[in-house]
């Protein structure tokens, strides 16, 4: 038999505005059953298995909210069940059972958990909740579905301090799970938004591993092409891609296509120009692979046209080693002229590297899985289409070009004075600012400001003293030894006392925590974290509006007393040399706890 059975009075509503059909709702570990009181109503007994239920939401418990709703959504066409309970306690009980059941059954379900794809089912859920419920269910509903649990677990695993706090508070029953995470909603949402942390990039091997395995004994060369490599080939060599789209699967099979391609590559690699030319003459398709990639050529031509006309390229024309065969070095007194035929490729490694770099910088256009070559080809075609559609139109480009040309050819001398974007500092009345001897108001009272009458006497007295300086000479001894010894002792005392209370140097003062032994430091941190958490929940519970809050406050107060005692004990137990600093550190905590206790006492005395 099911151990946990909750039976409550509830109403089943078709929509939030509905009056509802009164009945009895029985929640078991397997599912829930609803039996209406009045059998004459069209609605029969409802028996919903938890396997069907995807998630549940509840309405928030606020003073304004009188109705306690719970909504269960299923996978079946967004069919949802909305129940209204008589009070919030019953709703809580049901909610707990439902949550446990859902959590228990979820690991058995086979849905793959990927954070980006799993947020999509929960988002329409939120939308439907908000749309359907309108004002009855407030926006901050609690979704205890699998995704939420996943996120919480991940968060707990990532942060050990949080885990310790969670263990201390929630497992010991002081705070409920719901309250604990309610305060950390923003952290959870941050987790959700992150998604996959990193995208895998494009390999920069540049088809190096398309290097074939040559078998010494037999005359066979094996090429190994994976969908990743095929994707890269299509991205870097648009002519090959075009040929693929044209030929496969209409004219030849994929295998044949790749055989031809690999053959061409192999011949090119072995620098067998003559053989390549011969083969190309025979086979039209092979010729495609051996010739230049004309798509790349046309695009590079277009790019050259877009170069800034103000760039001075004349200086670099002599440095173009690539186009001059033999790198400009004259051999045997004559210029080598090896006219490359049209059929062979004259692009060098540099071109290949540049093309590869351009592809890498464009980013990885595909997100879908690379399973089949055909899909790869189509995906690359789609991406290229999008790219060309996004490219700026010609007119706008021309306009920007003209602007740049204007900018470069402007002469600074002919420009008018520019209005600066900031306002230079002008002090309106420098005298008032700088002159210190002409005050304009009253003064603070000082110790001895004599009246004008006695000022005269004062000045006279001073002048007499000054004129008598040389005559009187020095006193011998200048300062009595007892007095100087006393002063010496006093100053030393002051220094030592200050050192004792505040640390030897300023550097030490800042690293008080580090000067503690490790265990003490850990203790301090845990105490601080726990007390802060408890106090936060404590102060958030006031004003006490419901019995639930009262219970919560009582629980929190007991926990706080426990912590208080523990803090006192640890203060006693601290090693003697750091006891003073230790108790000073914990002093604000103790004060905060005292304030909380006082508040609790006054509040309970009032009630």
């Amino acid at each position, binding site marked *: 038999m099911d151990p946990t059975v909750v039976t409550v009075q509830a109403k089943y509503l078709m929509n939030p505005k509905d009056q509802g059909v009164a009945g009895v709702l029985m929640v078991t570990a397997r599912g829930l059953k609803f039996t209406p009181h009045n059998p004459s109503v069209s609605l029969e007994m409802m028996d919903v298995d938890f396997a069907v239920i995807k998630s549940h939401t509840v309405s928030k418990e606020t003073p304004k909210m009188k109705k306690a709703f719970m909504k269960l959504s299923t996978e079946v066409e967004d069919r949802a069940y909305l129940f209204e309970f008589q009070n919030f306690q019953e709703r809580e009980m049901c909610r707990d059972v439902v949550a446990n059941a859902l959590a228990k059954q979820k690991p058995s379900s086979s849905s793959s958990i990927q954070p980006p794809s799993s947020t999509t089912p929960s988002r329409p859920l939120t939308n439907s909740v908000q749309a359907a419920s309108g004002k009855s269910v407030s926006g901050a509903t609690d979704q205890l579905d699998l995704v939420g649990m996943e996120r919480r677990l991940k968060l707990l695993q990532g942060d050990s301090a949080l885990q310790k706090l969670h263990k201390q508070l929630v497992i010991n029953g002081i705070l409920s799970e719901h309250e604990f995470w309610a305060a950390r909603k923003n952290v959870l949402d941050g987790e959700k938004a992150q998604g996959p942390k990193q995208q895998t990039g494009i390999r920069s091997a540049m088809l190096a591993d398309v290097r074939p395995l040559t078998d010494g004994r037999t005359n066979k060369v094996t090429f190994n092409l994976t969908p990743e490599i095929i994707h890269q080939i299509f991205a870097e060599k648009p002519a090959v891609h075009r040929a693929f789209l044209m030929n496969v699967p209409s004219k030849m099979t994929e295998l044949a296509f790749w055989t031809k391609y690999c053959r061409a590559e192999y011949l090119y690699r072995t620098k067998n120009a003559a053989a390549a030319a011969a083969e190309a003459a025979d086979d039209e398709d092979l010729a495609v692979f051996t010739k230049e990639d004309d798509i790349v050529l046309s695009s590079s031509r277009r790019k050259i046209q877009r170069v800034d006309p103000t760039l001075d390229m004349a200086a670099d024309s002599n440095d173009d080693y690539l186009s001059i065969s033999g790198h400009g070095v004259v051999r045997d007194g004559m210029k080598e002229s090896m006219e490359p035929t049209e059929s062979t490729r004259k692009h060098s490694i540099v071109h290949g590297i540049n093309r590869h770099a351009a592809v890498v910088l464009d980013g990885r256009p595909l997100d879908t899985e690379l399973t089949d070559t055909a899909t790869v080809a189509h995906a690359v075609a789609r991406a290229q289409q999008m790219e060309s559609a996004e490219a700026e139109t010609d007119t706008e480009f021309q306009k920007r070009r003209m602007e740049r040309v204007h900018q470069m050819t402007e002469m600074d001398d002919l420009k008018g004075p520019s*209005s*600066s974007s900031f*306002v*230079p*500092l*002008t*002090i*309106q*009345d420098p005298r*008032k*600012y*700088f002159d*210190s*001897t*002409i*005050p*304009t*108001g*009253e*003064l*603070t009272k*000082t*110790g*001895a*400001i*004599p009246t*004008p009458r006695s*000022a*005269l*006497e*004062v*000045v*006279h*007295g*001073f*002048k007499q*003293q*000054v*004129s*008598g*300086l*040389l005559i*009187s000479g*020095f*006193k011998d001894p*200048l*300062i009595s030894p007892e*007095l*100087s010894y*006393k*002063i*010496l002792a*006093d*100053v030393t005392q*002051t*220094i030592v006392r*200050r*050192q004792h209370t*505040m640390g*030897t140097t300023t550097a030490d003062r800042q690293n008080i925590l580090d000067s503690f032994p490790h265990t003490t430091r850990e203790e301090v941190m845990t105490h601080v974290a726990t007390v802060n958490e408890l106090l936060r929940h404590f102060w958030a519970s006031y004003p006490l509006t419901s019995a639930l809050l009262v219970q919560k406050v009582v629980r929190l107060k007991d926990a706080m007393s426990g912590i208080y005692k523990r803090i006192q004990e640890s203060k006693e137990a601290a090693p003697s040399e750091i006891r003073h600093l230790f108790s000073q550190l914990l002093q604000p905590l103790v004060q905060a706890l005292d304030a909380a206790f006082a508040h609790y006492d006054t509040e309970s005395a009032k009630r």
Partner: protein
Amino acid sequence: MSSAMSAARSDDVSAVVILLDVNPYFWGTKTSTGFTFEQFFQHVLVFINCILLLSHLNQVTVIAMGASACTFLYDSAAIDGTASGRSKRDKQPESRSTTITQKLQEFVKKDEAAETNLAPVENQFSNLSGSLSMALCYIQRILRKPTAPPQPRILCVQGFPDAPQQYIAVMNSIFSAQRCSVPIDACIVGSQHSAFLQQASHITGGIYMKPPQPEGLFQYLMMVFATDLYSRQFLQLPRSAGVDFRASCFCHKRTIDMGFVCSVCLSIFCKHHKACSTCGANFNVKKGGQKRKQPSS
């Protein structure tokens, strides 16, 4: 202290600029401790001699702060240059103390002659801002000499309480001192603490002290203020517990704890103004009005 500053302080040579408070309105009145100006001056003279004895490379400069003017009383670097010339002529070279005392007497006489009528109550403050500026300019000058003394510092011996109307000028000097890494030490012989000098020593990394027994001033000076900057790294010196960070308002020159600050030039006012008197920024924000100030033609 930044590491750059401590790297430069590798020797225990000091160049001290002493600012002496010779305000007649302070020294003329009988203080509760009976510490007369005579005693004070003697202590300071012996202290100067002691500093010059600590190391032959030490330099001392003395500036006197009057109520309305300041003047150089003594400069050990300048005297040394001409000492040899003078000793040939005079049978008895003048002692340092005599020189300083004579100069002080001249200064006081000149000061008195300049004021035909006594200064009103508001002007009886010591001219701290003027003397600080003089000291800083002097330090800048000697730092540019070929034989620049390392690590100059300023020691300010003040009796009269702060002048709130000098707040702006004093803060400017303090920041310039911080910029040139010149610590400002402060020794208060009066009865009240000085907020300006507390801030000065806090910002520049100097020492602030108010001796509880001014008759033993010499002992305090030797214990605390004779230490050079290099030795301060490993000597334990009395640090003040807290700093009084009160400012004076710019409009009435009163000391205030809370006030209004102009967001453009950071001037402080004690009550709300429509426009800042220092930079002219307009504080009235009209509805839908311009957010940025247009330069006034």
